[in-house]
């Protein structure tokens, strides 16, 4: 088992749940974490979907891996802020928090807390005290709701 999978293996899979975007829009978030190269890399594909129309409100991808010094590196793209490389910052055990600088003095911060079948995500990419994107998702591979 690789060290990154040791820590973040429980994230693997597909998560879905309500999201409130930084600009106030509401939708359904979908995060899909998949391991590659025997768990040396975890690739995330992220989406926010309009719950009425199904249209995509936001989309992006990220790579989560260890750097030479064994620190977690988060390299990402999303359609609103573009590309950014974030480095892990200290947080509670079991929480992945990473931050990195953006253009024009802005700072991006993401924190992911996974607890069993629940996933809480917070993302901010403006001024430190600016609005945040917040979502609580559940593991989508749960058994399907019984048909009525």
């Amino acid at each position, binding site marked *: 088992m690789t060290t990154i999978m040791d820590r973040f293996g429980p994230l693997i899979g597909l998560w879905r749940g309500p999201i409130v975007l930084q600009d106030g829009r509401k939708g359904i978030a979908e995060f899909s974490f998949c391991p*590659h*190269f025997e768990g*040396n*890399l975890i*690739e995330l*594909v992220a989406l926010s979907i309009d719950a009425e129309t199904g249209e*995509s409100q936001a*989309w*992006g*991808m*990220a*790579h989560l*891996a*260890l*750097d*030479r010094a064994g620190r977690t*590196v988060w*390299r*990402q*793209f999303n*359609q*609103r*802020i*573009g*590309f950014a*490389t974030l480095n892990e910052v200290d947080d509670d055990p079991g929480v992945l928090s990473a931050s990195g600088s953006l253009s024009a003095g802005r700072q991006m911060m993401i924190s992911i807390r996974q607890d069993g079948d629940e996933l809480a995500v917070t993302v901010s990419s403006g001024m430190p005290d600016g609005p945040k994107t917040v979502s609580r998702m559940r593991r989508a591979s749960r058994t399907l709701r019984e048909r009525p």
Partner: protein
Amino acid sequence: MSNAMRLLPRWYGLWTGTSEHESTATMSVRTNILPVMEGRGFAMQTEMFDPSTGTFLRGVRFALAVGPDGRVQTVGYSTEMGVFGLEETPDDEDVLALSGVTESGIQLNVTYREESPDTLMFSVFWRPHGASLGKNARPGLFGRIHRRQPWRPPAPQGGGNPV
């Protein structure tokens, strides 16, 4: 429109071939080029194998997309060099050229040239960031990959079948 977003939709598919590594070893190469993020980006996923034993040797995955500032960049990872971010640089119209510095401080230059609709030639140069690229430096990796149709059995499936 950038070369990347014009060429990659045309290169969508499964490509295989061989690659030379610093003119010492020949490797089998498998590259899958496919749309991601609902067609708003493209991914190139490459694996290289020892042709005699079939053992996996190295791999690279990167996704290209257009940022809000119009620049084409990547989210990328290499089993040799770790996380990297490259940016598209101008080149001939049939060339995808990317360059950047990896998290491990290596200057990386990657090019794919379309020799024909189903043949791509690729080369990868790397050197410590800041070091100059010698006038006749050779690429660390170069090779050709081809896109082909799978073998189809002659009808009906009773004929000479290699599988």
